């Protein structure tokens, strides 16, 4: 079979971070081609570039031997390339038929709509994906699996020859996944090619013809799935530079600061672990595996439905983040912009936000006190700023993150939950953050350190626990852990971790 779609030498960066480095990728007709890699490997970015959602900085997309100049999704649509996102970009309050028709160049020929005609038009596509609902069903009445099928029907109605599916099964039940795979099998038979972006190893072996691995934005290799084995793919995903030497010596004591037993929430199932004073406990797992959700439960954001927590030897059940902070827990959120920064406030005001109670008397901010505490935290984080009063958004990503780390240093809780603290942060700032974690451990704090980067977990942590699907699949000493072992547990593969 010949190559049908080819991406050639694709480069793409966001801000200063290069998401794709000279990546090439070839797709055959009627092929299901999986794109796999760790969080941040660039697989979704490549999928979006193929579908015209993002534009590459350089590189070519060649379709049927012709160079294309895809500027936007509608250009890709005209060429028969469409994308289905993880969070379906459908309209919950419109009908199935309207969802298929909206923004659909093949159907939107006049400004007027005949609903009867629309329904007739949609029927064959709904049949193709095996969806037995009427075209005038309102979308939100369907299950997520059914919505997924609507999205595919929409792609088909645009004469799609290539469908990019980005983490298509992340919110589907087991039955719905099976159903989706049947549909994908039929599409293949009709010559439709699927780019299947995923990090679920078992699914990839079930569905893909070929597998391409990306790591840190680079192309690593392509294997026919019949010949590939999981261990080899994981090696390709995590890389060979096994610098994972554990810490020389930690600060962990035997004094328990946080004990969690059978903790359950809507997104967690019976998670148990103990954190000691001076210990850095790493939490590994893929996005959505339950690692951030542990923080949400500890910080009073998610309702705890079962299990017990004890903090400093007394029972702990937070009613709100405020309550959690009062009782000695600090949480550095994963999304700096959305959950962390107050964009219109200064560097100093951002840093002192959570500890104003401690820099005030009778409700008045004691500016001298605030400034001296700020200076101490700024020094500890090695913050680089033009001054305390500049807007926080003027700082680099790494320094913005240091402001948020500093926010908790000023509060000085007993337990720190750091959710991917080095995400999107430059190398220098990363080192500074590692140093802070080390200092906190030395000071006898308990630290929970979530990360997508296994080398940094191996380097900074005393122990590492691994999450998958809301459950803890393993906990191990960092000294004896390997990246491959952690990755296998994160993907919940049988008998992987030795």
């Amino acid at each position, binding site marked *: 079979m010949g190559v049908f779609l080819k991406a050639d030498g694709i480069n793409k960066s966001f801000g200063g971070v290069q998401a794709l480095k000279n990546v090439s990728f070839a797709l055959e007709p009627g092929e299901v081609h999986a794109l796999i890699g760790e969080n941040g490997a660039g697989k979704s970015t490549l999928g979006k570039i193929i579908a015209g959602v993002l534009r590459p900085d350089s590189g070519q997309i060649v379709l049927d031997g012709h160079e294309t100049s895809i500027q936007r999704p509608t250009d890709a649509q005209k060429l028969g390339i469409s994308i289905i996102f993880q969070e379906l970009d459908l309209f919950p309050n419109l009908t199935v038929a309207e969802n298929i028709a909206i923004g659909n160049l093949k159907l939107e020929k006049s400004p007027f709509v005949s609903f009867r005609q629309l329904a007739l038009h949609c029927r064959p596509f709904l049949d193709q994906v095996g969806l037995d609902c009427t075209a005038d069903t309102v979308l939100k009445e369907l299950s997520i699996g059914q919505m997924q099928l609507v999205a595919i029907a929409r792609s088909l109605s645009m004469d799609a020859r290539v469908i990019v599916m980005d983490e298509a099964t992340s919110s589907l039940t087991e039955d719905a996944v099976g159903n989706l795979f049947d549909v994908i099998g039929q599409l293949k038979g009709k010559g439709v090619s699927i780019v299947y972006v995923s990090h679920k190893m078992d699914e990839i072996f079930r569905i893909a013809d070929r597998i391409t691995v990306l790591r840190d934005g680079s192309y690593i290799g392509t294997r026919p799935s019949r010949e590939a084995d999981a261990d080899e793919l994981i090696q390709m995903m995590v890389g060979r530079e096994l610098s994972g030497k554990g810490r020389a010596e930690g600060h962990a004591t035997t004094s328990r600061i946080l004990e969690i037993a059978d903790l359950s929430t809507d997104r967690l199932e019976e998670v148990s672990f103990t954190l000691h004073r001076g210990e850095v406990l790493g939490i590994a797992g893929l996005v959505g595996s339950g690692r951030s959700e542990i923080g949400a439960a500890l910080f009073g954001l998610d309702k705890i439905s079962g299990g017990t927590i004890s903090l400093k030897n007394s029972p702990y059940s937070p009613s709100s983040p405020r309550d959690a902070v009062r009782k000695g827990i600090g949480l550095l959120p994963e999304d700096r912009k959305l959950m962390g920064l107050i964009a*219109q406030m200064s560097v100093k005001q951002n840093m002192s936000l959570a500890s104003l109670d401690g820099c005030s008397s009778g409700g008045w901010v004691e500016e001298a006190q605030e400034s001296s505490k700020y200076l101490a935290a700024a020094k500890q984080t090695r913050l680089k700023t033009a001054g305390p009063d500049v807007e926080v958004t003027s700082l680099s990503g790494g320094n913005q993150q240091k402001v948020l780390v500093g926010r908790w240093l000023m509060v000085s809780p007993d337990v720190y939950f750091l959710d991917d603290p080095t995400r999107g942060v430059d190398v220098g700032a990363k080192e500074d953050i590692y140093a802070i974690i080390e200092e906190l451990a030395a000071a006898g704090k308990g630290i929970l350190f979530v990360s997508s980067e296994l080398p940094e977990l191996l380097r900074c942590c005393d122990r590492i626990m691994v999450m998958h699907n809301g459950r803890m699949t393993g906990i191990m000493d960092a000294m004896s852990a390997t990246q491959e072992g952690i990755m296998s547990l994160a993907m919940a593969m049988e008998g992987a971790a030795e």
Partner: protein
Amino acid sequence: MKDRFLAVLKTYKGPLVLVGIFLVAVLISPRTTRGEIIFLGLGNLTDMLRAITPIAIMSLSMTFVILTAGIDLSVGSMLALSGVVTGTLLVEWDPGLLPSVQIGTAIISAIVACGLVGMLNGVLIATLGIQPFIVTLAAMIGVRGLALWFSNNERIGLGVGSDVAGSFGDMFSGKWLMIGTFLVLATVFAVVLRRTVFGRYVRAVGDNALASRYAGLPLRRVQIAVYTMSGLLAGIAGVLLCARTTTGDPNAGITSELDAIAVVVIGGTSLAGGKGSIIGTINGALIIGILTNILGLRNVDFNMQLMLKALIIIVAVALQRKKVSN
């Protein structure tokens, strides 16, 4: 030199609009037969300030509400409620107390009633999570009904004279008392916003509520507090308006919530929350005050005045917006 001039211009756009309007007012002001500029007369300037005082007072707390990314549409109705409560307690209530005690009771009752309405707004917004626009829209309708019901659909005239109601009117309609009340409140609000923990929280919550939650701030308490303050200040404005007009009018203050919002917006406070200042709001109040005053002096048709105000709102906000970048 030119660059510095431009930089100064950029920093002080709001006050520049004010200075511009002031100069235009001086230029187009009618003159007395002796050639004096009427607009600049002390009597006229203080009249202007007194006229804008009720709106200006409400716009102080409205600034706080808008800083939290909220809105309070009910202040006009609360203003009316305050007026009819004051009027009723002065005219139709005869407790046989000292006049000063009765006047004090009336004023405090009116302000507290509005404060309670504001607190209810805040509690509904903070605990039920209903949008502020909807909660305060309902309050705007309901409280207007309450004011009309309380006054039997009638205006309560205080009359003039030496009785309790008359002396209340004399006492609280004085120019310097009204302007002074505004100045004191403006100072308090400016200081609270700049110097207190609460002021910080107000800004933080409006700028990024989720981040504020993650920092452990008391989101609900902040919301309840700003709407309660909004009620209290509408109450104070209502008492002053009642004294000034010697009437407790259940139909007072219709659309004045929109005037208060306009003042805040002209003052450079962002409806998206997190950005704004009391100084800006004072500036906005003065712009609207001068504009209304000079158009009155020039006998410009009221309908034309509304159209000109619309223009000023757009121009003032357009000048102050952050440069849109790509």
